[in-house]
């Protein structure tokens, strides 16, 4: 796949994204950067079809990595430095998601006061999280990213 798109000197590659999710991830991260390459519906041995996003001079914050995990729990992240894969990791969910999800309960204090949201991961597959404040249990299909 390296030949398909130009190589980064420094930046981040997010690989093995389910094709239907690729543009959600791009929305989350890609938009704000100058050099972004998005490939989608590429052949993949493991997944059949996959998406890949490459962003120059960009390294993920913890919150960004957590958001991507919520969208594409099996994606691989490669940190590229000086043209080489410096570090490669599989995404994983932390037990507490901070500042990643907006609570869907309109009566939740986090919708009224300035406060970073926090959700406990109750179950990973299918994903269930509980608001640390109002204690509402939210299922994967109801999750709203902040």
């Amino acid at each position, binding site marked *: 796949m390296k030949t398909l798109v130009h190589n980064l000197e420094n930046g981040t590659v997010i690989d093995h994204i389910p094709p239907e999710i690729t543009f959600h991830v791009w929305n989350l991260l890609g938009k704000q950067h100058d050099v972004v390459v998005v490939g989608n519906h590429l052949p993949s041995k493991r997944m059949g079809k996959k998406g890949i996003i490459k962003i120059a001079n960009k390294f993920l914050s913890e919150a960004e990595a957590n958001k991507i995990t919520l969208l594409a729990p099996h994606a691989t992240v490669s940190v590229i430095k000086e043209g080489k894969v410096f570090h490669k990791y599989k995404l994983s969910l932390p037990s507490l998601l901070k500042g990643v999800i907006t609570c869907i*309960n309109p*009566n*939740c*204090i*986090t919708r*009224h*006061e*300035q*406060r970073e949201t926090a959700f406990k991961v109750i179950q990973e597959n299918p994903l269930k999280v509980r*608001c*640390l*404040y*109002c*204690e*509402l*249990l939210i299922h994967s299909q109801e999750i709203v990213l902040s």
Partner: protein
Amino acid sequence: MINFKGKNIISMHDLSKQEIIHILKTAECMEKKKYYDLLKGKILATLFFEPSTRTKLSFHSAMKQLGGSTIGFSDAQTSSTTKGESLHDTIRMVEQYCDAIVMRHPLDGSARLAAEIASVPVINGGDGKNQHPTQTLLDLYTIKKTQGKISKLHVAILGDLKYGRTAHSLATALSLFDCKLSFISPPSLRMPRQICDELTEKNIHFTEHESVEKIIPDIDILYSTRIQRERFPDPREYEMVKNAFILDTPLFKNAKPTLKLLHPLPRVNEITTNMDATPYASYFEQAGNGIPIRKAVLALVLGAKL
């Protein structure tokens, strides 16, 4: 070693079975002895952003019985919230005036937020439709006192199970005690999916019913709740269910003699006054149990030595 000093009491989800038992035991001590000076010199701030009668009065009384004093306000109109102050700023101010805070607030999760901000312990006196842990603790205490135990009882919770916050946290708490649970409500006011899922995950057996008659012979505790009129989006819906369950003496002819009828109060029409003189009626005793429970919670979070 269980040590509550400096801890917050925010949600039944935070308390282990051992911690609950420890609080109930401390409440028992509070009934046996007076402890006039236990909290001498301590100040409790009671912040009631939403109206309350029992919770506020019983916290005031409990604090005073232990030699402490109270400051506070009883509705948001008299607090600086009306001037647009955030909860954050109110707490940063109040924490400097007191040794502990009791708070009731209309927003869900407000107590957790206050606890994160405050350097003194925060006790949740009700956060929106979420939690009211001292109510649940006094419910458990009443069950324990009237039945001699909590485990293995058949507890039926009746009424507005959709909006009733006390019903939710009682069910959560009883899931730690290996009880048999029955939920009785009109179809439109059933126990929320969230609570049922939680019980299923913990392997707790529960059944749902639309009437009391059939199961009453098997029940040890009948916990009746008020239909929460103020939480209904449509008043016509309230009219349809307001008379769904009216408990009166004939219903109890097949009940166990040891059955106890509980209610968090205030009642509207769901328990007739005929019931008050029966041996089943335990709701006024239950309200009274708010005192030893709140004394226990105050003494524990303030680190008093009994």
